[in-house]
């Protein structure tokens, strides 16, 4: 269709080009006609003038021979009379000619109008026909640079939105479309997001929140938005951190809250079919009854839809991989309301493009996920936890490198820095006092025998890497106690918050060998600013978070520090985001991490999926040239 439209455009462009050429082609005839008529007028005028002169010149001679009175009497009218007569005659002739010419001109104007109209129409239809016969070649480029984008056109006028509201009310029922201020604010931004938009800007709030109950309803909603050109943002748990669900161009918010069911559990195939608003914690509670388990473990409160959107992970990623590895297939509603299913339920497949993984991590910019089939694994028979503290981050990181390099299949390995351990002690949320030093938390799982063996190996490695203490859990309760420190990390840093403070959770990842470098440099940098920070890391895969507390005056300071950390990660061949996603905050970092051309290729894909830019517009990649000064210096 887009191609057809493009072709139509081509033909139309041809058509607009033709009037000029038609006029040009037409002009010679018109000009000859005008010259012809002008020359006739001239000729007539000349003829009459010379006739008059001849007449006058003969007249001039006669008066000399006779006396005026005699001549007057004998030869009819006097000279004066003759003069008047000739003038009158001449004027009559001239006005007749003028009239004739005027009449002539009148006639040609009409015919000219007619023929121009005809020519325009004719050339127009011929070029339209030729346009369909020989369409323009599509642009042979594989990428779409920002400079070639055209700003998306949405219609978010009041009348348009109200009409759309009526459509939505018909689809989901009026009870499930909300325009309450509280609802709109809750779907506009969150306190913990590092994106701080302008709350007075009406474009940063949705016009209404729609709560669909099925894939069919989502498809119908998208069809309405597509015809009416309304921007759409998908919303599930709302726990994302980089402004993923903050609207930038008004429009509507689709909240999947009512689509929160587990549709089918195939325990023999180790998979489960769920709707987007299922919470991963609740899912795991249900699965535990069957001895099964779904590994990705992002922030509490997160829902499957958003987890797919950001390609999330957590402490389990070292052993089990990220969300990308645990989704078998997706049902997705596309920008025009088409519903697709990326594949069926086999554990492995090499059939066609991997659309599943393309949608995972696309942050709702390519389609709205309405159903997901998740891979599951068997709950390990035994598990345990160990805690080891070290004199420095570097010593701890060395220990991790050894564990990873030896291939010890630990379930998770996390690092907390000395500041973080101090905050945990201060908050007092755990039942024991911790050494305020860089600390590693290990999780083990497998058979009872295997776990025992792993603990022994790790203990040995830790000792050789300069570990100052090593505790491991001997029972269920001790395990929970040891792991509680890791769990309380974020909340205990929040507990130090002063009135008016905000929290910023930075997230980068680097190749493992550079981890201690970047952590040390980043900590030093933050220390100099005097901001309160703590550090938590999924060190097994080179990913860590810095938690920064700042108030409104310190915003710039924090921003700059985080910016320097991101830059450092890119310079070390790392990534600007390990697991939080790009959203609004990190999109201008992408060209630096990936290269202009790679981002241009992503933009081309975005525009192919969603030519009107309706889906979570402006997130991940820019689709419109930024204003001057909008992009911060690298």
């Amino acid at each position: 269709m887009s191609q057809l439209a493009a072709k139509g455009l081509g033909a139309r462009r041809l058509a607009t080009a033709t009037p000029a050429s038609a006029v040009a082609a037409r002009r010679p005839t018109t000009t000859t006609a005008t010259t012809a008529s002008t020359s006739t007028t001239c000729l007539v005028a000349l003829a009459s003038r010379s006739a008059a002169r001849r007449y006058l010149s003969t007249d001039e001679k006669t008066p000399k021979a006779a006396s005026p009175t005699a001549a007057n009497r004998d030869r009819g009218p006097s000279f004066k009379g003759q003069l008047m007569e000739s003038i009158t005659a001449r004027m009559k002739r001239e006005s007749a000619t003028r009239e004739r010419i005027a009449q002539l001109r009148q006639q040609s104007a009409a015919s000219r109008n007619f023929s121009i109209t005809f020519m325009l129409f004719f050339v127009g239809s011929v070029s339209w026909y030729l346009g369909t016969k020989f369409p323009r070649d599509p642009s042979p480029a594989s990428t779409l640079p920002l400079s070639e984008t055209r700003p998306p056109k949405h219609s978010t006028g009041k009348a348009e939105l109200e009409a759309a509201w009526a459509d939505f009310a018909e689809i989901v029922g009026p009870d499930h479309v909300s325009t309450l201020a509280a609802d709109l604010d809750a779907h506009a931004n969150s306190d913990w997001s590092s994106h701080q938009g302008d709350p007075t800007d009406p474009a940063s709030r949705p016009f209404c929140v729609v709560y669909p109950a099925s894939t069919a309803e989502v498809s119908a909603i998208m069809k309405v938005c597509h015809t009416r050109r309304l921007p759409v943002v998908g919303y599930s748990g709302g726990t994302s951190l980089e402004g993923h669900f903050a609207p930038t161009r008004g429009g509507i918010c689709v909240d999947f809250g009512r689509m929160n069911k587990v549709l089918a559990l195939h325990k023999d195939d180790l998979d489960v079919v769920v709707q987007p608003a299922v919470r991963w914690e609740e899912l795991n509670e249900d699965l535990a009854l069957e001895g099964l388990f779904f590994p990705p473990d992002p922030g509490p409160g997160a829902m499957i839809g958003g987890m797919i959107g950001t390609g999330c992970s957590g402490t389990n990623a070292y052993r089990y991989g990220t969300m990308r590895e645990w989704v078998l297939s997706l049902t997705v509603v596309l920008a025009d309301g088409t519903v697709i299913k990326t594949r069926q339920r086999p554990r492995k497949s090499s059939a066609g493009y991997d659309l599943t993984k393309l949608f995972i991590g696309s942050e709702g910019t390519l389609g709205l996920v309405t159903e997901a089939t998740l891979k599951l694994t068997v709950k390990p028979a035994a598990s345990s936890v160990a805690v080891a503290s070290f004199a420095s981050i570097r010593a701890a990181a060395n220990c991790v490198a050894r564990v990873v390099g030896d291939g010890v299949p630990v379930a998770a390995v996390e690092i907390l820095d000395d500041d973080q351990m101090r905050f945990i002690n201060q908050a007092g949320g755990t039942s024991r006092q911790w050494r305020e030093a860089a600390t590693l938390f290990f999780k083990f799982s497998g058979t009872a025998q295997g776990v025992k063996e792993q603990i022994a190996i790790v203990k040995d490695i830790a000792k050789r890497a300069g570990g100052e203490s090593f505790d491991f859990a001997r029972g269920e309760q001790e395990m929970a106690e040891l792991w509680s420190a890791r769990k309380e990390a974020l909340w205990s840093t929040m507990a130090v918050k002063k009135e008016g403070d905000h929290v910023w959770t930075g997230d980068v990842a680097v190749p493992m060998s550079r981890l201690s470098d970047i952590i040390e440099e980043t900590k030093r940098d933050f220390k100099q600013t005097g901001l309160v920070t703590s550090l938590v890391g999924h060190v097994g895969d080179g990913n860590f978070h810095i938690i920064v507390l700042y108030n409104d005056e310190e915003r710039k300071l924090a921003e700059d520090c985080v910016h320097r950390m991101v830059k450092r990660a890119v310079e070390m061949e790392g990534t600007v985001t390990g697991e939080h996603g790009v959203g609004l905050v990190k999109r201008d970092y992408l060209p630096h991490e990936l290269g202009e051309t790679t981002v241009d290729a992503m933009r081309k894909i975005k525009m192919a999926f969603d030519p009107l830019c309706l889906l979570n517009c402006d997130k991940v990649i820019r689709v419109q040239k930024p204003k001057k000064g909008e992009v911060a210096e690298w």
Partner: protein
Amino acid sequence: MGAGPTLKRIDPNLMALAYAIHSQMLQAADQIARAIGQDNVSYDTDVLEHHGHSDWSTSNSPVRAAAVVYPRTTADVSAIARICNALSVPMVPFGAGSSVEGNFSQPHSGICIDFSHMDQIIAFHPDDMDVVVQPGVNWVDLNRHIAHAGLFAPLDPSPTATIGGMVSTNCSGTNAMRYGTMKDWVLNLTVVLADGTVIKTRRRPRKTSAGYNLTSLFVGAEGTLGIVTEATLKLAPIPQDTSVAVVAFGSIRDAAAAASELIRSGIQLAALELMDDVQMRILNEHGSEAVRRRKWEEKPTLFVKFSGTTDGIKSDAARVGEIIRGSAQLHFAKSKQEEQDLWAARKEALFTMVNIRPRGTEIWSTDVAVPVSRLAEIIDLSKRECGQLGIFASVIGHVGDGNFHVAMMYDPRDEEQKRAVARCVHNMMSRALEMEGTVSGEHAIGIGKKDCLVDELGQDTIGLMRTVKRAVDPKWVMNPGKVFDR
């Protein structure tokens, strides 16, 4: 672009997109020769034949490429793409030529790009456990080269396969049960797009959520979206210890049922393979000396591989024994030598089969995957149906992930037999789809399975794939005629 539905299929006749004629292709080859050197372009008919036909494949096309070109750098490939795109000449990348669904044949002729000169290991980062390689690197060579650091790339397709092709078909093998498929082991790719633009999908972090996952999009795209010119692969530590056990069952259904029980037990097996009675008989009759040292029971047999720490293996093996106890007797390798011999039996299977095939017959080898719980049923049904054809037919499978292959030998001159085999394959596909499986577990789509892909995914999903394809390759010059039609 217009406001209408974006994903409707456009009548191909409306698109002014014809490929270049033969003389223009030669002209392109000439321009390429000037860009990358005369020595790196070949018009030799034998070379063209070698790059256009495969004995392994059931989907060869009669058309050959106009020329074969041998780039040495990413810049060379970019120059080739620029020339071909400008002249609308199809480009078909060629790795080792071990694919089986006609993935590298050239139904629209064009230029074949052979990566045998791009076979360097560019950088090895043992501390980060990754390696940067060119597409022409053979995986066996790679693993030999990095073994000293205690690392390996845990993929094991056909021993001749090279990285470029492995990426493009999203290959796997016996290790997939434990380690996953190619997709899980590629950190980033450097790709040349249709118009010659070079992109690198990302840097080297082990995990990231920055932007669209282009890496996974190119893995398994069979060269239809871009040409891979460099790949960074994740590596895994070589397990401290391994062990192998074999167990024979009374029927294929019992064997498959035991396999799915093992999968569901959660024991971290390294591999779980199934060979049927026909395969076992071949081993006894035609196997290599090492394999024939043992008298194999000619019954459906499961091959179980363990890996990990020595103690871990012991406890895993004990649990496997418990699960299987009722139905059959487990035989463990008692020495490293025996372990190798046992596993060699599994590795040799396909080659032995090809070697003993009667003159004039061809092998139709195909693969499907289904959810684990349906595995026993589909293997049983497929085996029975193939058996009725009265020809050589055998089942061999990576049952650990619900994937298995059927190989049938048929006489290509016997039209009726050929039709019967085709029908049998077709039935197997529809059965796999009914069971919510896939028509290709690891061989990809190529030319051979295009129709099946439509059956599996439906027109709308294929329509979206087409949209992706058209976006990055508007002139449809990258390996045309594969995966799906325009």
